[in-house]
């Protein structure tokens, strides 16, 4: 088993939370892991990414080679485009939220952004804000995107659920429940899309 995932978003959108959940799930399945993060200046509203590598064998590089990522998992659509050069042309998936984060004056028209994603052979675009809101809070939008990615991660769904329980446990049952529902909503959306 080997999965190379690029997580993309804007500083403060919670991609490190996604990375932590996937990481905990992977560890619970006995996998090895390397997770490269961005700290410092970019965290102030700039683009941030994390390279997350899971494998049953030892992992050498902290960075994923270009053209080798199995997945771009983005919590913002423009940010998914930023890592197209990393995506594996034969097998790579783009999983992204449809909800833009517009903190730049020249944010391109949404149709143009989406047109670039829908040109790809494998993608899922999910309205994470809406689905998260329906579960109780927009705050869980990042976990909805994780849910939409979950069928393609090569991890057991249970492992992700357990990781959410472990990570959010301190914040109380309500927060755990919200995030479990958000994960499920994303998962259902992806399965429906994928099969339909």
């Amino acid at each position: 088993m080997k999965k190379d995932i690029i997580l993309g978003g804007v500083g403060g959108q919670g991609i490190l939370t996604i990375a932590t959940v996937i990481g905990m799930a992977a560890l619970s399945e006995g996998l090895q892991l390397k997770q490269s993060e961005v700290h410092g200046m970019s965290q102030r509203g700039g683009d941030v990414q994390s390279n997350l590598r899971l494998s049953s064998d030892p992992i050498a590089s902290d960075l994923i080679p270009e053209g080798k990522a199995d997945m771009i998992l983005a919590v913002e659509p423009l940010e998914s485009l930023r890592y197209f050069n990393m995506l594996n042309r034969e097998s790579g998936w783009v999983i992204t939220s449809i909800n833009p984060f517009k903190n730049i004056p020249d944010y391109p028209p949404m149709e143009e952004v989406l047109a670039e994603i829908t040109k790809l052979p494998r993608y899922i675009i999910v309205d994470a804000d809406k689905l998260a809101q329906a579960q109780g809070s927009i705050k869980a939008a990042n976990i909805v995107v994780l849910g939409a990615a979950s069928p393609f991660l090569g991890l057991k769904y249970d492992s992700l659920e357990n990781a959410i329980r472990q990570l959010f446990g301190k914040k109380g049952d309500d927060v755990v429940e919200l995030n479990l529902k958000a994960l499920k909503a994303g998962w259902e959306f992806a399965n429906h899309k994928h099969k339909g």
Partner: protein
Amino acid sequence: MDKLLLLGDEAIAQGAVDAGISGVFAYPGTPSTEITEYIQASKEAKERHIVSQWSSNEKTAMETAIGMSYAGKRALVCMKHVGLNVAADAFINSAITGAHGGLVVVSADDPSMHSSQNEQDSRFYGKFAQIPVMEPSNQQEAYDMTRYAFELSERFGTPVLFRITTRLSHSRSGVKRGDIRPQNELSLPSDLKQFILLPSIARKQYGALLGKQLAFQEESGKSGYNVLYEGSDKSMGIVACGIAYNYLLENYQGREIPYPVLKIGQYPVSRKLVREFYDQVDSILMLEEGYPVLEELFRGIMDEGKPVKGRLDGTVPRAGELNPNIVGSALGMETAEGYPLPSVLRGRPPLLCDGCPHWDSFGALNEAMKDYGPGRVLSDIGCYTLSALKPLESINSCVDMGASVTMAVGVAEAGLTPAVAVIGDSTFTHSGMTGLLDAVNRKVPITVVVLDNSTTAMTGGQDSAGFGKLENIIKGIGVEEEHIRIIKPLRRLHEENVKVFKEELAYDGVSVIIPRRECVQTLARRMKLKHAKKKTTKVNTVK
């Protein structure tokens, strides 16, 4: 014991705690900040009374650590690469005094300048000071090497430089811990003159340092951190330093590397191993994260030995960090390509947070500066450096910590007046105070704006050394009281604030304006904590 999932920085921190340090001394700076933060948050470190409060700057941190080493205890010093420039005087001289208790200096380099003004390679400092340098390739090595570095420091009575780069600092992986070593007992150096660098003593001490050089080199061959791996194809040999080794392995996924490989994790490198490597290969490929430090040595000034490829001939780009693709290309391999970046993609540079007090401070400054020409605002290093970008475009310089004040003095002395310095509260106490004293003594017409958000914001909100003391410091330096103005940077006070700026810009002397409002990030965190505490208290009462 279970493996811990640690950043490279955290692996160093855990290694240092387990090596029995009694203190960590540091000023925050990306990518080194997480080392000290990890120790500050560690329960074990607290139980063991490990000192971990932030220092005012890297020089005070380094000197405090030398003091702890003098007293026989183990001390860790952490900084970003440019911080070592600030600490350089103390650092270089610590090589001459030597160490008593273990002394390890971590310098975190930032090749590609993700969060820095340059990409200087700290290995040069190791060579400059003539002390051993460690350079780990992965998180486990970061942990193991830290422990080893303390042992090495005490065995040879020398400080040890520990170099790490951004990618490893900020990448997480499983780390297996070793046993916890107890802290050293308080003890004085056997020679009480060891730390007195009077010329007569310094010459003797320097002789002792020079005398250790051969042993340092031999140690690199014995420690296991210089390793020669055999390869059957002798047409080329590869030298891989630090994290470059991982990128090399990545390109041979599950396959054996056909060439001899010299893996370097410790300097000065073992001449014996280099000789053994050099004699068996026809050409050499140098893979170094940073400057071509070893490559220059391998080539020599005439470059007439065996053909060497690396950063100096363009096989590897001269600037910037390495990655698996760059190393793959240097090996002559076909590397995979993803999709081209769509033309619709736009850059998303960092910017000041919504509600950040700096918006209002610069809003008022920009308006007050309209009366004068452009190019008079010298600034410094912190979140506020982002005011160089659109839409504010307020500042004209950012060079090094504290340079805003002294550059403004120089600009004013050149005749461009009034000149303005904009500096944050933490940067001011780091290196701005002495410059302000120069300004007062020269009576130059400058206005110093100390943006007081009461924290070290850029690196994530660490304590600011001058908290609650700024006015007294500034008064004590000699700025006249009526020209120390405190304003509250808020949109609704804009007109008032512009007026204050205009008045002080018009004053023919040194004035200081302190726009004071807490960083929105630390404020939000504080409120969240307060809220959480209230909640717990409630639950407790119900019980």
